[in-house]
């Protein structure tokens, strides 16, 4: 039980590497940096394998293994108590704990595995770049966050990882921060993710309010207890809010816009974060909350519809993009749409299976693209590539395998998972989702077309690069090709884990996940949705003509897409024709400009573009606020000031003329006027006074004399 008891070491090892890089990275040699950062992740991979191995052997019933380290939020003092939705007292409590069950096992294995390979690849790819230690520090920090996200035993801890991977995504997209486009893309990713994160937080709080706990095991147990009715509006709200978070992180409509721009980061980052691991966090979170989603059919429908629409929407844009990484980015968005379609129709295991296979072949595609870019001296535009198959054979072979896998050609990995999703969509709700299947099927066709377009434009046709670039083309170093080879191996064989019963397989993958989703199957079954029952049973019920027919159709779609791309691009030379452009020029323009979604967002949400003379969105809100501030708030202030001044003027007038004038100066003036005659007697000359006195004396004398 060593590995299970010490499961906390798995996320902590990359955290150690990141800390080391943060404090001492600048002073370390490149070899030391590589050794530390690749070493920690490799060790984490070994520990993960050990932990999963021990888990599988010690928990035959696949009950979840939980290792609680300590209480992180909340305490025994009762300060964080509240009343739940149903009126029960509850205490908000979140632990730092690690949960290992089949679901997190799968994520743990492919995150550490693919992560390790990409770390090794990066030592070659980034060898000539500045900020080597910074890059690996961020990568290690990302691994820590992602592992925290996967292994957390409650929503709060998941959220820590969730934010951590968002931060690392931001840092790595903006790795070439001296490029404005890169820092803009980083900002865009971070801001769009914040919208989703807000939804996730609200969803988490709703769950805490509804269930009185944020611990996965407790929430799941309670949701499955049968006390909560299906379609409870609060649960529906919680599920939808969680899905908003998933939309942000996993790049679903309408929040997918950051992912194509995220290709500004170094290619290994695109492979690790924006294809294989981080963007599947939303799928993980929804799968982890399956007990809640099953109780909210409306939310499930939303997930399915959004997933299907995202799948075809992104695939359609991917048809005409010329930047090799952008094609892959839209492909990722599209494949994530598939995953959510699967989750939405209740085929959780199929969705997770697609995450698993997708991680390998999409990481391989990105790393292959990185190898191509490396060979092309940094050129990413496929119009300037061509005829690389002979010059970079290993890259070519591995990318060809990955393309076959994603196009759904048997027996490569993508075939099994995609076929499973399409089958489940076809059969779920007794066929009510057939139109979603149609969308999914169309997406499969497009996927095959744009992937083989990428392949032919890159590796076939005439060389379209400049002579100087052509001269420098070389196969990548061992550190890059070895991970490619390993991933190619996985892209071939990973799908075999889910070899369906209909093809005489045993579908180990679904069986392994059964304990996580089994209860859902039972709930769905109880509601008469037999089509959605868990993998094992389902296979037996639906092994029949329809399944073989669907399988045939799916393979046919892949082959048709391949054939179309082969016809159009196999001989591509300078100035080759895009078939879509030839057939429908306006459609091509719309697709090439990504359906003008970014522009639309700029008009409606950011307000960077004016709609007529009106500015909407955030900047519009800013304008409105500024107007409000200037005209209403300042108006009030100025109005108050004006009134005060007017009153003061009046008051001053009153004071000057009435109080001072009539009240104070009035009597004084009156006294002055009245006293004026008397003042005239006062000359100030003593002798005059004396004369008056004499006159008075004489007056008296004469008065008495003549009386």
């Amino acid at each position, binding site marked *: 039980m060593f590995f299970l008891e010490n499961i906390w070491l798995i996320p902590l090892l990359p955290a150690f590497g990141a800390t080391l890089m943060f404090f001492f990275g600048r002073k370390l040699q490149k070899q030391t940096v590589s050794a530390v950062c690749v070493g920690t992740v490799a060790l984490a991979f070994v520990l993960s394998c050990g932990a999963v191995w021990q888990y599988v052997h010690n928990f035959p019933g696949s009950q979840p293994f939980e290792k609680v380290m300590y209480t992180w939020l909340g305490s025994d003092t009762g300060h964080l108590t509240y009343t739940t939705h149903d009126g029960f007292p509850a205490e908000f409590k979140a632990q730092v704990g690690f949960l290992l069950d089949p679901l997190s096992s799968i994520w743990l294995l492919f995150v550490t595995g693919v992560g390790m390979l990409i770390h090794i690849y990066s030592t070659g790819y980034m060898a000539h770049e500045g900020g080597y230690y910074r890059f690996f520090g961020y990568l290690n920090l990302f691994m820590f966050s992602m592992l925290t996200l996967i292994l957390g035993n409650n929503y709060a801890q998941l959220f820590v990882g969730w934010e951590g991977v968002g931060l690392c995504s931001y840092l790595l997209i903006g790795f070439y921060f001296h490029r404005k486009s890169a820092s803009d893309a980083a900002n865009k990713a971070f801001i769009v993710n914040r919208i989703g994160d807000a939804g996730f937080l609200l969803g988490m709080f709703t769950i805490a309010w509804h269930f009185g706990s944020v611990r996965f095991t407790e929430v799941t147990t309670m949701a499955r207890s049968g006390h909560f009715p299906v379609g409870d509006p609060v649960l529906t709200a919680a599920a939808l809010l969680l899905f908003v978070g998933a939309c942000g992180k996993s790049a679903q409509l309408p929040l997918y816009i950051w992912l194509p721009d995220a290709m500004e980061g170094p290619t290994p980052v695109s492979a690790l974060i924006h294809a294989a691991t981080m963007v599947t966090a939303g799928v993980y979170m929804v799968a982890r909350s399956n007990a809640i989603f099953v109780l909210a059919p409306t939310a499930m429908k939303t997930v399915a519809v959004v997933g299907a629409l995202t799948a075809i929407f992104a695939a359609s844009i991917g048809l005409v993009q010329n930047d090799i990484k952008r094609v892959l980015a839209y492909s990722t968005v599209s494949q994530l749409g598939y995953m959510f379609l699967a989750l939405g129709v209740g085929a959780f295991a199929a969705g997770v299976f697609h995450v698993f296979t997708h991680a390998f072949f999409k990481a391989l595609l990105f790393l292959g693209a990185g190898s191509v870019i490396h060979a092309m001296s940094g050129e990413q535009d496929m119009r300037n590539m061509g005829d690389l198959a002979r010059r970079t054979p290993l890259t070519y072979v591995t990318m060809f395998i990955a393309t076959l896998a994603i196009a759904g050609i048997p027996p490569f990995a993508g075939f099994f998972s995609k076929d499973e999703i399409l089958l489940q969509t076809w059969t779920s709700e007794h066929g009510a989702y057939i139109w979603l299947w149609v969308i999914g099927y169309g997406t499969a066709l497009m996927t095959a077309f744009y992937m083989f377009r990428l392949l032919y434009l890159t590796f076939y046709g005439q060389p379209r690069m400049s002579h100087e670039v052509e001269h420098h083309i070389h196969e990548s170093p061992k550190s890059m090709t070895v991970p490619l080879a390993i991933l190619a191996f996985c892209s071939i064989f990973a799908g075999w884990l889910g070899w369906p019963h209909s093809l005489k397989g045993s579908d180990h993958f679904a069986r392994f996940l059964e304990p996580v989703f089994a209860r859902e199957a039972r709930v769905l079954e109880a509601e008469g949705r037999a089509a959605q029952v868990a993998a094992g049973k389902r296979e037996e019920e639906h092994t029949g003509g329809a399944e073989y027919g669907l399988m045939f159709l799916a393979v046919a779609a892949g082959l048709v897409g391949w054939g179309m791309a082969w016809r159009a691009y196999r001989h591509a030379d300078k100035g080759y024709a895009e078939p879509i452009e030839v057939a429908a020029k306006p459609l091509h323009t719309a697709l090439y400009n990504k359906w003008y979604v970014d522009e639309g967002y700029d008009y409606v949400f950011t307000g960077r573009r004016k709609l007529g003379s009106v500015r909407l969105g955030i900047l519009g809100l800013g304008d409105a606020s500024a107007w409000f501030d200037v005209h209403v708030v300042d108006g009030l202030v100025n109005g108050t000031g004006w009134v005060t001044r007017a009153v003061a003027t009046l008051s001053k007038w009153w004071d000057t003329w009435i109080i001072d004038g009539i009240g104070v100066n009035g009597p004084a003036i009156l006294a002055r006027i009245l006293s004026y005659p008397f003042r005239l007697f*006062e*000359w*100030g*000359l003593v*002798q005059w006074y004396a004369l008056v006195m*004499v006159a008075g004396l004489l007056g008296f004398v004469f008065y008495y004399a003549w009386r």
Partner: protein
Amino acid sequence: MRVRKTKSRRTEMTPVTTLHYLVVAAALFVLGVIGVLTRRNVVIVLMSVELILNAVNLNLVAFSRIWGLHGQVFAIFVITDAAAEAAVGLGILIAFFRNKETVNVDEVDLLKW
């Protein structure tokens, strides 16, 4: 000689009565008043005031022939009073001169409205 002659000429005239004194006092008083009213020099004005006071004294002494010694006692008081008044007046005069560099009363008319 001259005195004797005069004396001999006036032997038949009436003796000096109170009225005579009063006339002399009145004349003296009028001289004083005219002095006070007409002279500019403060010293002369003060001297004229002394004349007025002495005219009063003469009255008092003259009446004391009829009414007893009270008048004479009162005259002594008035003389004392006049001495004090002269002292105070001359003091004011010196302060006055120091400020104004003049002793003319008509050049001082500050004490008015």
